[in-house]
């Protein structure tokens, strides 16, 4: 049963470069430590060539020309580690979370999908590159051998069964353990390679360095047979980015959002998942707004909330980062943060992507992805609550409805409606306009509203209805259907209206017209 080890060299630097791809070709230095005494903890090859060494202070590192200096960010490291696990889980459910920069996975059964183990290793490597990580890959029948080979060589290194010891013999013994003490002992003995360690007698080694030494001897001989400690797959997809300079405008902010969305979508698609909901959390720079307090006649300051939240719920799972970015932009255009942004945190709720089968001879229905974007654009024109499908409320109040999200019909069919007499249409006047009505003998005879006036030729009513009288917003009204002869500029027209007398407000209103 072969195993694969995936190792991310210079993990701390790669975590930063994954968030800021522009840094990959520049000399980069990572600082950490108690403020303000920051020390250099990681240096990339370009910076090392310039002479930057580990342990330098921030001031000393800044003296090197062109060196990019970043503070260590734990959240970026956690996101990079999660991406590494996602890459492993995209191949096998049997994954061991060995270290922040190392994962091991079981390759059993993958050859039927990808062919040889070399192909599997290449696929794993390219999947990790797609997720922003440059990794070393080692494949062996032995878990520890695969891990040590991944530490030692960029790979992919494939070890044939039974040849583990040959592949390990030339590798330095320091790769076997991260415990510096034991490695120092071996160095004092003159044991520098795994081959030399494997050649030592086990009993003597046990007497000198204890059971830990025996374990290392077994590993160096390529005979270890430990099994994986399986990690449970998580469904937490989170990416964050802390900014050195706060971003104030939407354009540069959307550029950063796009980058995070790309990373999230790549992780999700690697796990064959899609985004159902995105929660965006923007940490804002503390800001103040001056407001004039008239009562006290002095200027007071009003503090903004420090965090801005935005939730984007999608009717169907989406994997397209560009579409998500457009939707987020439209949402932020409608309600933007009130202060510059200094940190972005994005969390995606995953779901299984929908598969849709279209028919050749069926009428087209709106493409769900395009539809969502179009609805967001229309909402930015007419307002969030003014677009959607109406849903009638289960109450007797006239014109009671609410707007709900419009979902395109799954597939257009050829169902035919039974032909029946058409119903008269009604046009609602929102909000209802007040009117003046003249009565004679209990019947309305004349009406004035919206600059119009007319003689009532037919009337039907009053139809009394009331409701919700047990609540504060109770209503009670008498409705009349009127046919009104309205005199226009050129001719006289007959129009039908529905008017109501609001018994609570003691006023007449025109609810709408029959058309």
């Amino acid at each position, binding site marked *: 049963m072969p195993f694969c080890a995936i190792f991310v060299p210079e993990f701390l630097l790669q975590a930063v470069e994954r968030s800021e791809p522009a840094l990959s070709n520049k000399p980069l230095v990572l600082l950490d430590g108690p403020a303000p005494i920051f020390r250099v903890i990681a240096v990339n090859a370009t910076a090392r060539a310039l002479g930057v060494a580990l342990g330098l202070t921030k001031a000393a590192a800044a003296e090197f020309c062109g060196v990019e200096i970043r503070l260590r960010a734990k959240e970026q490291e956690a996101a990079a580690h999660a991406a590494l696990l996602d890459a492993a889980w995209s191949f096998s459910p049997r994954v061991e979370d060995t270290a922040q920069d190392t994962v091991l996975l079981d390759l059993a059964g993958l050859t039927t999908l990808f062919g040889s183990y070399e192909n599997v290793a290449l696929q794993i490597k390219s999947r990790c590159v797609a997720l922003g990580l440059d990794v070393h890959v080692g494949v062996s029948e032995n878990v520890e051998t695969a891990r040590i080979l991944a530490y030692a060589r960029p790979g992919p290194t494939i070890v044939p069964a039974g040849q583990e010891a040959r592949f390990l013999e030339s590798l330095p013994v320091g790769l076997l353990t991260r415990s510096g003490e034991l490695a120092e002992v071996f160095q004092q003995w003159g044991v520098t390679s795994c081959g030399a360690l494997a050649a030592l007698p086990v009993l003597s080694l046990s007497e000198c360095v204890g059971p830990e030494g025996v374990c290392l001897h077994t590993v160096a001989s390529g005979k270890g047979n430990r099994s994986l400690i399986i990690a449970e797959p998580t469904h937490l997809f989170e990416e964050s980015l802390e900014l050195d300079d706060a971003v104030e405008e939407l354009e540069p902010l959307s550029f950063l959002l796009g980058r995070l969305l790309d990373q999230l979508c790549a992780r999700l698609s690697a796990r064959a998942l899609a985004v159902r909901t995105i929660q965006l959390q923007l940490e804002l720079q503390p800001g103040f707004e001056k407001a004039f307090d008239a009562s006290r006649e002095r200027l007071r300051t009003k503090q903004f909330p420090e965090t801005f939240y935005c939730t984007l719920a999608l009717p169907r799972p989406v994997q397209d980062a560009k579409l998500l970015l457009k939707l987020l932009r439209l949402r932020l255009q409608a309600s933007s943060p009130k202060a510059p942004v200094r940190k972005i945190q994005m969390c995606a709720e995953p779901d299984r992507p929908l598969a849709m089968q279209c028919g050749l001879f069926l*009428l*087209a*229905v*709106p*493409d769900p992805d*395009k*539809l969502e974007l*179009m*609805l967001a654009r*229309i909402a930015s*024109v*007419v307002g969030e609550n*003014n*677009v*959607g*499908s*109406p*849903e*009638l409320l289960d109450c007797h109040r*006239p*014109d009671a*409805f609410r*707007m709900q999200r*419009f*979902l*395109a*019909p799954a597939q*257009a*069919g050829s*169902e*035919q*409606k039974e*032909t*029946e*007499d*058409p*119903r*008269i*249409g*009604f*046009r*609602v*006047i*929102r909000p209802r306009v007040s009117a003046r009505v003249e009565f004679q003998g*209990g*019947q309305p005879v004349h009406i004035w509203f919206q600059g119009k006036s007319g003689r009532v030729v*037919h*009337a*039907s009513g*009053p139809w009394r209805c009331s409701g919700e009288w047990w609540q504060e917003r109770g209503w009670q009204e008498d409705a009349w*259907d009127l*046919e009104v002869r309205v005199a226009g500029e050129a001719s006289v*027209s*007959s*129009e*039908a209206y529905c008017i109501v007398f609001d018994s609570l407000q003691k006023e007449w209103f025109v609810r*709408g*017209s*029959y*058309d």
Partner: protein
Amino acid sequence: MRSSTASLRLHVESALAGRVASPFRLRETRVPAVVPTGIPALDELVGGLPRGGLTEIYGPPCSGKTSILHSALASRTASSEACALVDAQDAFDPSGSQASGVLLQRLLWVRCHGLEQAFRSLDLLLHGGGFGFIALDLGDTPARLVRRVPLHVWFRLRRTVEDTSTVLLVLSRESNAKTCASLVLRVEKEKTRWSLQKRKTAAIAFHTPGCLLDGSACSAEIVRSLQWRKKLRFIDRANLREEDCEGMARFQVNFEQYVTEKALGEAAFLPLPENRQEKLPKRCKKKG
């Protein structure tokens, strides 16, 4: 002369090569597919609303435009098509339309407040594609405002909807799309139908089903149609005879609660006050 014409033709064709396929050949006019409006008389007159074309229905207030819209929406939503209504003055009545048979969950309602919002939303809808039926309701927008919409806007709408399977329906008080429309209908209300011509009950507290608004009788006339050529004649609408009604259709729209007398039965009617004593059963009369 002939050779110079041929050379000129060749010159024009070469100049327009890549932009216009064959400038001297008439474009084939295909018979567009049509969808029913749901009103038999109207469907008989115009055949239905053309797909890939702009249909304009105009008329004064209370002339039956909204009834046609609801009927068409009911027909299209019943066919599981995605429908959209761009409502320029937020005048759509969901309750009434559901009673007309519109499946509200298949209807996208865009509640606009003004022409600018309405036309921007309509553009987005048309470019988004996939909708089988899109209606622009300008019925409550003052005609003087709609008149200001430049002709090129209507032309753009026509070009956008062309070669698609979308029915674009515009409701307005006056005709504005002119030649950009594939079908233009003028609707007019002939009369409002009441159960009784004159209300005989003066008392407020007394109701009778005989005093209800039953509906209205409307007529529709083809003003322009690419499929149907109207004979030019002057019509005296006041003295219109049946044989002059070519290109016209009459239809009735009923009130939501309208029930025919046959369906209701005589027993359901309450007697009018003056006849009440006569209609009372003898046993009651004795007690009184």
